[in-house]
């Protein structure tokens, strides 16, 4: 293998030039590779979550917003679904029906009010602690617990909606009872509470704290937040009709296609509520992402083409710089064919090293960066 030996020796003794070539080609390979892998992973992950939640019911408006809200608790809903609508759906016995209330945040993470069947629905397990028992309890997603350094027994304040609205809702001190096992989904970045707790944060439910007036506000502004304890937990209640309590979405997994079709038909002409097939909506969204990917692919093709041209130029210039060396090889009896083979081997080594680097970097990106990026998608 004289060609490999000489090619390797040349590259080894010109580390600067070799490194620049390998890095350049690595980038040309890495960008389209990681782009494809990430989008594929994104597609697979959001597809799986959408498939496990076939129907999302919520207020009329943007279809994308509703599905993203129902599945990932991210987009904000303008409008509510009355709790009575949820009760009506439950009584139909058409499958699993999960209420979602997601209007508030804590340390920037969404606070989601739901029922215990959500955890069964998503197959979420508790890693540490025990399930929430009373109003004011919460269960943290794994990422929230890690990022905020919290564990069961600690407390967490909800974020105030408007810092200057002194008459508005007070932050609620949440008691952390459990940390969920990591799932690689949006649930990892969510603070789960009961629906009643969510309604307390919203000010629909209230308790009677000695230091607070009947409306849950302090006339002397002594208390900066609400706190639910075992002593006052039973005092929390609402004077409004529970059928009107707000939800932001209802997730449904119908027991049959027929049930799904009937449900979709029921909401077809509803004046304020819409029922959406989340896989269809997510496919539409994914279609947009894929179009962006196609654009990036075209862009990367140009980059790769430019890199190829640059490499060809390097080879051509290197041959000129190495005229004397190649002439020496000729004088020593080396065939022209072998001289070309040496240079082709050099390029092959560079391409091989670049491919290994590109695949390695792509793997690392998918392993580490993707887990961060895809939490939202899951």
């Amino acid at each position: 293998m004289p060609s490999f030996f000489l090619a390797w020796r040349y590259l080894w003794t010109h580390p600067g030039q070799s490194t620049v070539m390998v890095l350049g080609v690595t980038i040309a390979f890495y960008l389209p590779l990681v782009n494809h892998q990430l989008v594929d992973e994104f597609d697979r992950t959001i597809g799986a979550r959408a498939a496990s939640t076939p129907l999302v019911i919520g207020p009329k408006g943007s279809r994308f917003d509703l599905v993203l809200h129902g599945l990932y608790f991210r987009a904000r809903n303008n409008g509510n679904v009355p709790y009575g609508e949820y009760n009506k759906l439950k009584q139909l016995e058409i499958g699993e029906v999960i209420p979602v209330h997601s209007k508030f945040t804590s340390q920037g993470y969404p606070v989601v009010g739901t029922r215990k069947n959500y955890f069964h629905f998503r197959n979420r397990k508790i890693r540490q602690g025990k399930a929430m028992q009373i109003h004011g309890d919460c269960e943290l997603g794994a990422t929230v617990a890690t990022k905020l350094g919290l564990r069961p027994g600690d407390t967490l304040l909800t974020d105030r909606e408007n810092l200057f609205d002194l008459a508005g809702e007070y932050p609620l001190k949440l008691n952390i009872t459990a940390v969920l096992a990591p799932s690689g989904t949006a649930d990892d970045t969510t603070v789960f509470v009961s629906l009643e707790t969510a309604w307390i944060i919203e000010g629909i439910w209230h308790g009677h704290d000695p230091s607070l007036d009947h409306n849950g506000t302090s006339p002397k502004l002594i208390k900066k937040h609400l706190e639910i304890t075992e002593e006052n937990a039973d005092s929390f209640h609402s004077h409004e009709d529970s059928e009107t309590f707000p939800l932001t979405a209802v997730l449904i997994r119908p027991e049959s296609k027929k049930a799904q079709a009937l449900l979709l038909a029921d909401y077809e002409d509803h004046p304020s509520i819409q029922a959406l097939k989340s896989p269809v909506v997510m496919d539409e969204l994914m279609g947009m992402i894929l179009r962006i990917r196609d654009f990036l692919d075209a862009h990367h093709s140009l980059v790769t083409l430019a890199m190829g041209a640059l490499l060809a130029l390097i080879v051509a210039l290197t041959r000129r710089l190495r005229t004397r060396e190649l002439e020496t090889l000729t004088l020593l009896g080396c065939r022209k064919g072998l001289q070309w083979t040496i240079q082709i081997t050099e390029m092959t080594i560079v391409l091989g090293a670049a491919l290994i680097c590109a695949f390695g970097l792509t793997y690392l990106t998918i392993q580490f960066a993707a887990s961060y990026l895809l939490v939202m998608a899951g």
Partner: protein
Amino acid sequence: MDISLNQVEFAYGDEDFRLQIPELKLAAGSHTAFVGPSGSGKTTLLRLLAGITQPQSGAIQIGDYSLQSLSDANRRAFRIKHIGFVFQDFRLIEYLNVQENLRLSYRVNEALNLTTEVNTRLKSLANELQLTDKLDATIDTLSQGELQRAAIGRALLPKPKLILADEPTGNLDPSNKSRILDLLFAHAAANHATLVMVTHDHALLNRFEQVVDFEEFHKKESTNA
């Protein structure tokens, strides 16, 4: 190898230079020095003898080989098998160390087998050339004298039958010149090789059996040196 040139003419395309050799004979195993001013054609004649360049006309016979009748591939094979060329400017490969440079002919030619015997000979030759400590050194760390000796080592390792040396003592001090000449003569004698050496050093000429003065050669235009 006996060498004979007959009516050889060579010219570079766009230059005034013209080499004309009506007749020249060098006996097998002889030691010949080429002397003369720069540009008189000494190196050109070495390249013609090595089959690196071809004359426009005339015949060059080396041993049983008639160079003008050989194809390019056969001339290359002839050069690999029989010629050891010491270049004036060393022509060592900068990204190889000394021993890799010495072995280079074996690396790039399938006709030469890199055997254990060759490696043993390499070590012995390095010892003779006082390069043992430099075998793993890179080319850019060598002195001029060491570069010269490495270039000689590369030419001698395949035990050529015709040693063509273009000013191999040009960068050496007097004691090293003498040692290198001894080495070249000894290797030529051991392999019954013909030695042709270009030199500007007239003090060395008395060691050669035959001296070809290119200045005189050109004056006479067509006489044998």
